[in-house]
């Protein structure tokens, strides 16, 4: 396994191991996520990449029976450290899910402001925040005249961009995306990729994807996860995206990125 040498590690996982009950599902994951870069996590289903991304904002611990060892450092501080409130971690490290999940009882505008209300923070200049967030997720022009309509009146692709905007409204330092385009059509996928490119200028992004082309289009570095024959998942190869796809070191990486298995 190769380690990428990076100037500034914004987010770092150190020897992350994960268990569900007695089952060891992830072993010794050491990854470094540099500031304002996009990192793609790829690998076949069941290799633990979605599990791993959930350890990065402490969503993992909401699953009953979940266990963890190791550390996740944000700007050098362990997010699992003593006295660290998981709620504060999730405010700094936002998340977008596989299936668009806007709150069905809320309007488009209320969805954008929902994070602030949920975390009990004061909403000042709400209109401005709504507009900036929607603009950054490049959905403003489509919804600006219907901000008070229910969020579920939007199409699937629009709902997903709304969910991105909802996360951006919290001004997170890191955005985690768990297969954000897997339920979307190619047009919506392309627009979300453009959004990723734009917002990565100001935040660190980690994206899980099953789409090889997507990984190559949006990311600067890629980690390949694999779980072999009942062993826990682990990182087989980690490096610059171009290297992982064009000059992979491990033969298993080569097989996977060329579609020979998975």
């Amino acid at each position, binding site marked *: 396994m190769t380690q990428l040498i990076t100037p500034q590690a914004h987010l770092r996982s150190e020897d992350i191991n994960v268990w569900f009950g007695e089952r060891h599902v992830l072993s010794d994951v050491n990854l470094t996520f540099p500031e304002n870069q996009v990192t793609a996590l790829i690998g076949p289903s069941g290799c633990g990449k979605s599990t791993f991304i959930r350890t990065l904002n402490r*969503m993992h611990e909401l699953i009953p029976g979940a266990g963890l060892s190791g550390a996740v450092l944000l700007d050098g501080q362990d997010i699992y450290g003593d006295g660290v409130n998981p709620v504060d971690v999730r*405010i700094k490290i936002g998340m977008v*899910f596989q299936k668009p999940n806007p709150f069905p*009882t*809320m309007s488009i505008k209320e969805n954008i402001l929902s994070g602030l209300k949920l*975390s009990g923070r004061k909403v000042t200049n709400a209109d401005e925040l709504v507009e900036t967030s929607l603009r950054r997720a490049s959905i403003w022009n489509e919804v600006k005249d219907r901000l008070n309509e229910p969020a579920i009146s939007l199409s699937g692709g629009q709902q997903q961009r709304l969910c991105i905007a909802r996360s951006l409204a919290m001004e997170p330092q890191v955005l985690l995306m768990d297969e954000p385009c897997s339920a979307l059509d190619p047009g919506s996928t392309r627009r979300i990729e453009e959004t990723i490119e734009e917002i990565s200028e100001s935040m660190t992004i980690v994206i899980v994807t099953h789409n090889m082309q997507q990984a190559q289009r949006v990311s600067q570095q890629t980690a390949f996860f694999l779980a072999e024959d009942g062993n826990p998942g682990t990182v087989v190869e980690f490096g610059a995206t171009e290297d992982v796809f064009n000059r992979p070191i491990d033969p298993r990486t080569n097989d996977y990125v060329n579609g020979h298995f998975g």
Partner: protein
Amino acid sequence: MPVETKPAPQRRRLTVKPTLLGDRIFFGITTGTAYFSIVLVVLVLIFLMIRAWPAFQHEGIGFITGSKWDDSVQPMIMQIFPMLYGSILLAILGVILAVPMAIALAYLIEFLAPKPIARVVTLLVDLLAALPSVVIGLWGLFVFSPVAEGWAKLLNHYLGWLPLFANTSGNFSRSPFIAGWIVAVMIVPIITSVTREIFSQMDRDLINAAKALGGSMASTFTKVILPTASGGIVGGTLLGLGRALGETVAIFFVLNLSFDINWADLTEARGGSIASMILGKLGNASDYERSGLMAAGVVLFITTLLINFLAGYIVNRAQPWRK
């Protein structure tokens, strides 16, 4: 040249009814049973109406708006407004007390408790639903009433300046306050079970989204879970309300029925309940009085039916995203 018109397309016959013998028998039995339940409800209503007619005819609209029941005159006067009002008051009281309990229980079972504990709690709540009304009535009379009287006195002592808790007679037993608690105990299971069902069907991704946005346990509950589940909870509540209106024996044990209407003095020993009144008077009623009791039954029947329709309507309307 004559214009040739294309003949209208001929529709084919499509098979919509079952063709196999076994399917036909099954179809016949299920539709028959379904219609029979409707017929039964209509027949009950017709029977009640026929028996109740003399009272309705004689009392007119006064039967439900008046407040006098007097068998010392001929023909006797039968007006049930205090009972109708009392039934509704008890149902509302019961719902106000039961809904927070039921939501808390459902939340505990679905989201907080480890599986074995959740299973035990579910079992206990379902067991509560299976207790016969008369058992709850006896418990209410001998065990609960003395305790609840203490609560009523406490409320009166500290909040007596509120009209709700004023008590001029000094008698705190057999009051709507106590009966309301008994109703609550009896409808908690149904509301809990509906709410639990709604919670369990909730998209876990919504809860995860709320948590990922920095939601705490409390804010996730009040801002996401509760609003999303509200339609179902209202439906369950109205089902409970329907049941509360018909509650008979248990209330008979713990409430002093009075035609001197009690608007909102919850701790006074006067109250009303149509079902309990029917139970109390049926034993030694004359033929004419009996028709009055049947008429009271019709009123209760229709009130309950209206509430059930309302429940269905609200549940459908309150969750547009389910369509």
